[in-house]
Every structure is written in structure tokens, then in C-alpha cells.
């Protein structure tokens, strides 16, 4: 699997939905792609970077900038793609909603990978509603083959109807693999940039005309959708007609293959004529859709049809074959032979050797805690650290800390600091720091710089000195940036030097003016140990004080009043437990590590 997939121009590949989208972009001549990583969308740009050199691909500092750069490239006539997780579209919504008015010169695909079930997200928003609100066309694939094919479909719809197209995936599409028939790349000419201010400058006089075109476009798209190959009726038993889209279609087919199914691929705007025809041919209509009642509400309102959807299919969480079976084939439900057994939870934890562990240990030791942000370090909320108390969205750690001080003053703020990763800081923390300086906040921002966008699996960002393809790139100077924003002090510390970490943090928390502590140590994913090394216990010297347990290290457990180090988990270049042990019972040979 080491060879690049642009050398494979025919045959069948086993691809995830994300890999298939990358493939589709390549085959359909996409020139430029930009994105910020976000689960479950990240692997799209990673796959483009790894396999498809013909596409100019880059990590953007955030989704809004990604959207703006692909907009510009489309203005110049290039075929473009941007990808993001569902909440990323909130960040990019500002350009998207007006790009909808402006339209597409080169085809525009905006991939939104939603996360029903919140496997790795803070909310469960259904971005089909964003397509409706922004009035752009939307396609929903139901497996990897469709994910690939629909990129090409989206580009032709985009260019034909002069609209951005939202390609809406969900976790189960993005991260499930299935077989995909692939083909060669179709080269498409970049049309070249030509000024067109009536099209691209939405001053009110222009924008009013644009809006009329958008409404007309929606009507045309609905008509187009009625005869579109990816909206299809699968005729079956006419007693029950199921209207469905996306991965929900697969669950419906799984549990009720004989049913009549209206499978919708183009789901905004809805193909009214086709839906009317389907409804009139079945006795009863049922909606099988994940998330919000997007199809259900629109169809029921338009046709006043008495149909069941969310009354049977869960509104919350991810659908699965069990929930769909209960909704449409309750007669075939059978109990599993073995019931669920009560087992201890296994929540995610900071990895052994994680740089953040030192920072949270020190913060906790100072009886401190934090307003938090989005990244691995959100796990600082877990015991034994218990050192993170709020999270909203990317960048919010800083605004929230500042707001708490506004409400209750420096004393009321107590020992709270803002905890934010370097990638998240660049994404949308910088403006928060500017606000703190401008409006007189005196808090401490702890930028946890592990030189990697880590939670999403390890991507480069503007602070790492490398671009998406791993080539050298200018490195953002965080210290200079923070000073320029107005921080009165900026200190850099290795979070695995616990004494220094605690000292610097204490001094800056005591400082009665705005300060930044950058805890800088690379993520363990960037490090290849030269040999194994693990901490060893001298049981005679151990007094069973359990201080090492305060690290919350997955490699350390406590049995029979003694710590036990798992050599499989202990990370070679970490000696935090050796540092905290008050009796010298723990030791580790780190020579040459």
C-alpha cells in the first residue's frame, strides 16, 4: 500500500469515504484543496496530500480561511474542494452563505463531515440544515463508491447551476471502508481570472439580484433532482415506502430489503415531483434519517402526508441497524444471546509520555484549573488532574477566561488559566488574546504547544515549520505574536521539567497583568524511540504514597500497595514518575533516548 494511488487508474480499491472523496477530487480534475483538520473529515486532505500530487493541497489555519482560499481559486476558474467537520462549517459559514449568492466559476465542493453520536465532537448538529439555510445544493453519499462519484457530480452541478455544493458525509460514511471502482484523472483547464464585480461584489444593489438568482436556482435544482440518477425509487412491497438518504439507506436495506425505498442523493433542494410520485405509490410512508427530521419536516409540510419518522427513529445519537430495525421491522427484532455485562468504563486518556500531562500535573498541584478548548488537552478534565472546567468551541478558552474575570474580577477568577493548544490558538485564539489585551484582562493563557495538530491524528500547522506534504514551510513565531497581541509577559517552558513548569506557571498566575505561558514539547507521535525504556520500581524504597498516581499515567497502576509500571505502555523519553517520586523508588535509564 506504499505506492501512490494516482498510479492506479483502473480497478477496485477498498477505500474509506474520506479516501474516496480524495480519489473523486483527483479523478474529476480538482486543482486546489484546502482544509483545517477535524474528525471525521481529516483524512480527505491527508489522502490528497499523500496520493494525489496533481492537486495543490494545503492545511488552512481555520475553516473560514480554507473556504475563502477555495472561493478565490474558483473565481480564477479552478475546480476546488474544502473539507471540514460539522462544527467547522460554523466557522466557515460566513463566507459560505455569501458564496452561495456569488456562485461558482470553477466548481466548488464543500465537504461537511457530521458526527452523529458525537464520537469526537462537542455537539451533534445536522449540517443538512446549513445547506438549506445557505441555499446551496447538497449531495449525500451512502457508501464510499458514492462518496467518490458524488465529488464529480457535485462539480458538474456546481458549474452548471452556478452554486457551491455541500457534500455531506457522516462519521459512518467517512470512516467506513467499502469497495470502489476507480478510473483515471480527467484534466480540466483552469479558466483564468476575469473580474466580474456584479457577480462577486455583493453590495446591496448587486446582492438583491443575486438573491433572486439563488431562489430561481433552487427551483431549477428541484426539477433537475426529480430526474437525477442519484435520486431513485427502488420498487418493492408497496405497503411501506421508506424515504431515506446517506448511511441510513444502508440500514434500511439491511433490515428491510423488500420494502419500497426512495433513496435521495441530492437532498437540497428536495426533488418534489419525484417525492410526490413515490408517496402516491405506497400505502404508508416512513422516514429513516439520522439526526434532525430534515426530510420528514419538509415532505410532511409540503404534502400534508401523515407519515412517521422521528416518532419511531431516534432524534439523538447515531442510527444503527438495531434502531432502524425497531423502527421499520419490529417483527424481526431478536434478542442477542448474551446481555450487556457491567464493565469498568475505559475513557480516553492522555497518552503515556504526553507533554500535556506535565502541564496539567503542575496546574493541579497549584490548585489551579482551566477554561479549556478543543484538542487532546480537553482530557485535562479527567481525574486525577481535574484541571479543566469549560469547553465551547475552537478558541473559546480565552474569551471565556476573560469573561469570567469581567463578571467576578481577578479574585473571583481564582486559579483559572486558559488552556489552549497551539493549533487551536492559531485557528481562533489569536483574536481572543487581542481582546484580552485591548480590554484589560489580567489572566494567564497557557498555550500547550506540542508542535502538532494532535487529536486529529497528527497534522502540520503554521507553527510546525512544515506544510501538508511535509515540506519545509515558514514557522509562525508564537512568542513574537503573543507579545504583538499585547501580552505583558511570554514565557516558554518544557512541561516535562516539572519544577520549572510549576515555577513559571505560579509566577505568571500571580502576575497581575496579561501573560502567556507556552508549554513546548513535541507530541509523542513525532518521536521514534531508539530503544525501549521503562521506569523500574525499587520496592524496598517505595512507601506507597501514591503520588505517582497523581500523574494519571496509563502505564502506572497500583496493586498490593505498590505502583506497577507496564513496560508495554511506558513511554521511552518520559520520566515524570521518576521526577515526582519523593523517595527515589522509581528510576529509568534514559541515556541516549
Amino acid at each position, binding site marked *: 500500500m506504499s505506492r501512490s494511488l494516482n498510479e492506479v487508474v483502473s480497478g477496485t480499491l477498498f477505500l474509506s469515504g474520506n479516501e474516496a472523496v480524495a480519489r473523486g477530487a483527483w479523478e474529476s480534475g480538482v486543482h486546489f484543496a484546502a482544509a483545517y483538520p477535524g474528525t471525521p473529515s481529516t483524512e480527505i486532505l491527508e489522502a490528497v496530500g499523500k496520493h494525489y500530487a496533481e492537486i495543490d493541497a494545503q492545511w488552512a489555519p481555520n475553516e473560514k480561511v480554507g473556504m475563502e482560499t477555495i472561493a478565490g481559486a474558483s473565481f480564477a476558474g479552478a475546480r476546488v474542494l474544502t473539507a471540514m467537520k460539522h462544527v467547522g462549517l460554523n466557522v466557515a459559514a460566513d463566507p459560505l452563505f455569501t458564496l452561495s449568492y456569488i456562485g461558482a466559476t470553477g466548481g466548488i465542493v464543500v465537504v461537511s463531515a457530521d458526527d452523529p453520536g458525537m464520537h469526537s465532537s462537542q455537539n451533534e448538529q445536522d449540517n443538512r440544515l446549513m445547506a438549506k439555510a445557505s441555499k446551496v445544493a447538497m449531495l449525500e453519499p451512502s457508501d464510499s463508491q458514492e462518496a467518490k462519484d458524488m465529488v464529480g457530480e457535485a462539480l458538474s452541478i456546481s458549474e452548471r447551476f452556478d452554486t457551491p455544493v455541500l457534500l455531506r458525509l457522516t462519521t459512518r460514511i467517512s470512516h467506513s471502508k467499502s469497495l470502489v471502482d476507480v478510473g483515471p484523472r480527467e484534466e480540466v483547464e483552469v479558466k483564468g481570472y476575469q473580474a466580474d464585480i456584479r457577480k462577486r461584489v455583493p453590495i446591496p444593489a448587486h446582492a438583491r439580484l443575486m438573491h433572486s438568482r439563488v431562489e430561481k436556482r433552487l427551483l431549477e435544482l428541484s426539477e433537475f433532482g426529480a430526474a437525477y440518477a442519484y435520486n431513485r425509487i427502488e420498487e418493492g412491497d408497496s405497503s411501506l415506502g421508506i424515504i431515506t438518504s446517506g*448511511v441510513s439507506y*444502508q440500514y434500511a*436495506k*439491511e433490515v428491510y430489503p423488500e420494502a419500497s425505498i426512495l433513496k435521495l442523493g441530492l437532498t437540497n433542494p428536495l426533488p418534489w415531483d419525484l417525492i410526490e410520485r413515490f408517496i402516491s405509490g405506497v400505502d404508508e410512508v416512513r422516514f429513516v434519517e439520522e439526526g434532525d427530521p430534515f426530510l420528514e419536516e419538509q415532505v410532511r409540510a409540503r404534502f400534508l402526508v401523515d407519515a412517521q419518522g422521528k416518532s419511531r427513529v431516534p432524534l439523538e445519537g447515531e442510527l*444503527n441497524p438495531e434502531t432502524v430495525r425497531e423502527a421499520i421491522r419490529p417483527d424481526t427484532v431478536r434478542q442477542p444471546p448474551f446481555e450487556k455485562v457491567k464493565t*469498568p468504563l*475505559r*475513557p480516553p486518556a492522555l497518552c503515556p509520555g504526553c507533554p500535556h500531562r506535565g502541564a496539567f500535573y503542575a496546574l493541579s498541584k497549584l490548585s489551579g484549573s482551566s477554561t479549556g478548548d478543543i484538542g487532546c488537552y480537553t482530557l485535562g478534565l479527567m481525574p486525577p488532574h481535574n484541571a479543566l472546567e469549560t469547553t465551547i468551541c475552537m478558541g473559546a478558552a480565552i474569551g471565556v477566561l476573560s469573561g469570567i474575570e469581567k463578571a467576578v474580577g481577578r479574585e473571583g477568577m481564582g486559579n483559572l488559566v486558559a488552556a489552549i493548544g497551539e493549533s487551536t490558538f492559531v485557528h481562533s485564539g489569536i483574536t481572543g488574546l487581542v481582546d484580552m489585551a485591548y480590554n484589560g484582562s489580567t489572566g494567564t493563557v497557557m498555550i500547550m504547544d506540542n508542535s502538532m495538530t494532535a487529536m486529529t491524528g497528527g497534522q502540520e500547522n503554521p507553527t510546525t515549520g512544515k506544510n501538508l506534504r511535509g515540506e519545509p514551510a515558514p514557522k509562525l513565531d508564537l512568542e513574537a505574536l503573543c507579545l504583538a497581541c499585547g501580552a505583558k509577559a511570554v514565557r516558554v517552558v518544557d512541561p516535562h521539567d516539572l519544577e520549572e513548569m510549576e515555577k513559571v506557571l505560579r509566577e505568571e498566575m500571580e502576575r497581575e497583568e496579561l501573560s502567556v505561558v507556552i508549554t513546548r514539547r513535541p507530541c509523542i507521535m513525532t518521536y521514534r524511540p531508539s530503544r525501549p525504556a521503562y521506569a523500574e520500581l525499587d520496592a524496598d524504597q517505595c512507601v506507597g504514597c501514591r503520588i505517582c498516581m497523581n500523574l494519571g499515567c496509563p502505564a502506572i497502576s497500583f496493586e498490593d500497595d505498590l505502583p506497577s509500571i507496564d513496560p508495554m*505502555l511506558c513511554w521511552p523519553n518520559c520520566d515524570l514518575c521518576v521526577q515526582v517520586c519523593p523517595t527515589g523508588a522509581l528510576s529509568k535509564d534514559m541515556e541516549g533516548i
Partner: protein
Amino acid sequence: MDGMELTNVFICGTGGQGILLASEVVSAAAQSAGLDVKKSEVHGMAQRGGSVTSHVRFGSKVYSPLIELGRSDLVLSMEKLEALRWLPYLAPGGRMLMSDIRINPLTVNVGDAEYPDVEAALNARDVPYDVIPAYEIARGLGNVRVVNTVMLGAASVILPLGPEYWKEAVEQRVPPKALKVNMEAFEKGRSLLG
């Protein structure tokens, strides 16, 4: 008609145990055998030392990427507690293979929960299971990272895919420099149940 000829494999363990690689190998073997295949798993937060699962389904035509509860022909667990956690996926007549590895969850390490006696719990429920000494074997081969391949070797005896497809799949999916030790691990696992 539907589902009759499908095989469902539920693979579980903890982050870092090579579950995703194992499910790649099963899928590649099924693909080589000319079957339709789907597999599904979740990335991101769940992989930070949490419980990790992968659903693999193969047969003439696969719709759902997820296995239904109580319908997995094989539950392959790289860790003991995870075997117990995901037991409800096991089908009537299905079989469970579990490694000899115990990895304490954080809840156990901090004293909020106790690691259960997994074998006793399985015995009490008459679960058809085998403990595969995968850790012992992997350590004997000098590379504890090949635990997942030992488990795959054992699984290959149970799953309806010929040995030629398995060999090709392992070769395709493991890094070339680790191929030899992985093939040995696979054969050792295979001989346990063979």
C-alpha cells in the same frame, strides 16, 4: 435471503493495539476472495487509549457497515476486559477469541473500579471462547507489537476464507521490514487452533 451468506467479525481492544490494522487484513483477505466487504470504525478522541472497535462484514452483498448486536460470527478481542464489554455482539453459534492481555483502564488505575475476572464471567454465561496466549507468543518472537497478528492467525482458522487469501492480505498490509515476524506470528496463531 439477505444476510444468510454474510460473515460478521467484530474486532475490539484498546487504542494502540493494532485493531485497525487487523481489520484491514481481514478485509483484504475477503476482497482477495472476491467478496463484497465493508468495515467501520471510529477515529479521533476514541483512540486516545480508549476502547476501540472495528466492524468487518463480508459476503456476496453487504449493506450496513455496522454489525447488529447478537449477530457477530466472531468476536476477536485483543484485550480481556474489552471481550467482556462487547460480548452482546456475539451471535448464537458464534465464537469469541480473546488475547491473554490485561490493560487497566484509567478508572481501575485510579481506584474507581475493579478489573473483573473476565474468564469467570464468560464461564458463568457459557460463552464459547478461547484465550489465545498472544502476548506470550509475541514476546517469544521478540516483538510485542505482533499480538494482533497472532490473533489474526487464530481467527483465520475460524473464518471462511482460504489460507492463500490470508497470506496475501498480511503481506499487503504490514510494513515490509516487519513482514517476517508478522508471518511467523500469523502461523503461530494459526497453529493454535489449527
